[in-house]
């Protein structure tokens, strides 16, 4: 796995329907986070577990297995949609554990860097394009991706393993941005350019402002 992905055209990113679909999903998830009620009557809120950690290896196998199941059972387009949905959902659930995170202010890069801290991924931002001081496009270079593990073989090498990851990063920013209402850019879209092949390799994501 892991070659360069075919560079996706970015024309559709500015299609009003495409942007609206993303916005509606973000708004719906903000409502979910605000109204979240656990179905476990006696569970203490996990938010009490402030900085508790678990070794990364117990998480690394979860998504690759689901990835294998989804690409085996769905068309490429539908598998990508479901993988992206997984990333968004994980982020929404994470915010429902820590709803106070929605209120944290910061620049786009600061918000994105937060994720690297939680997931122990190392990220650097390269090739920024600015317009009036606001980032319009940039590339994220990411080491130690939580979704790509060495030795995991996949049947369909044309599909990036880190689709959940790009959607996770994208949703993390978009949720915060629409909740706070005054961030620039307002919405971003992230796509995969390259997935890491082994633990020493890196992933590349293309970030683009869509509103």
């Amino acid at each position, binding site marked *: 796995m892991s070659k360069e992905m075919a560079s996706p055209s970015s024309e559709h990113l500015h299609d009003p329907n495409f942007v609206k679909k993303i916005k509606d999903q973000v708004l719906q998830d903000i409502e979910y986070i605000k109204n*979240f*009620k*656990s*179905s*476990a*009557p*006696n*569970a*203490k*809120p*996990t*938010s*009490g*577990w402030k*900085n*508790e*950690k*678990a*070794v*990364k*290896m*117990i*998480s690394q*196998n*979860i*998504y*690759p*297995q*689901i990835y*294998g*199941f*989804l690409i085996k*059972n*769905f068309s490429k387009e539908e598998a990508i949609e*479901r993988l992206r*949905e*997984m990333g968004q*959902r*994980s*982020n929404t*659930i*994470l915010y*429902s*554990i*820590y709803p106070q995170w929605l209120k944290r202010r910061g620049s786009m890069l600061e918000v994105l860097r937060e994720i690297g801290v*939680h*997931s*122990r991924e190392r990220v650097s931002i390269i090739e920024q394009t600015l317009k009036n001081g606001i980032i319009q496009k940039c590339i994220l270079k990411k080491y*130690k991706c*939580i979704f790509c593990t060495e030795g995991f073989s996949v049947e369909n090498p044309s599909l990036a393993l880190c689709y959940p990851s790009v959607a996770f990063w994208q949703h993390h920013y978009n949720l915060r941005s629409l909740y706070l209402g005054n961030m620039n850019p307002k919405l971003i879209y992230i796509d995969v350019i390259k997935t890491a092949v082994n633990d020493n390799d890196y992933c590349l994501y293309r970030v683009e402002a869509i509103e």
Partner: protein
Amino acid sequence: MGKFSSFWHILGDIGKWVFFRREPKILLALNASMYVTSVLSIADALSSLDSSEDITSKREKYEDAIELWATLMRPVSEEMISNILFRTSIMGIQLKTLLSKFKDLKEFAYFINLAIYSLFGPSSKKLVGKTKYISATESEEKVDTYIIRIKSCPYCYPTMIPSEKLGRHRWGKGFVATIEILTQLAQDFLQHNFQVIAREVMCFHQGDPYGEFRVWLYPREQLELIEVNKYLKLIK
């Protein structure tokens, strides 16, 4: 506790701390959200793949999703745990050397806590109590049993699926399966001929005041005892 075993306990305590310190870690809540997400994503996928005309059967495939989740994860969890148990060395001492000192079933209870600490670090003290060993003669199920009290659970809270929609499964399937695999691999290594079965018999998600895992060691020549285990009739 004799002097000999206390030496290995001290070494184990240092080893688990070193192991957790040196391994890359992620936020526990992120791990929990990944668990919830993976079950929901499988449930959605199974509903879409269901060709049945019956709308009720198409909806809410949570029980099937947990079943499939466990099936998908088992081989990779076995690989991960066996890598930890048999290929990890701490301060020049292989973990399997340490494990071989816990051949006694009563002593092995300590090893379970040591393994949980290795995965969750200091927060494991918030998570679980001390593992209790019940000998076959004293156990309700007539086999050697470990009881692990769950004091607080990061996996239950983020879920929105009501427990009655899980059928015979419990929400902590992922966690209890890890303990089951760990115990099975360790007992096989210690050349004990047991079939290990673990279940979450009490769960916050079900409304219980605490969680409880039971790990039963069935001698392979007495597997018929599984039939009389009341928990296994109720919980998958």
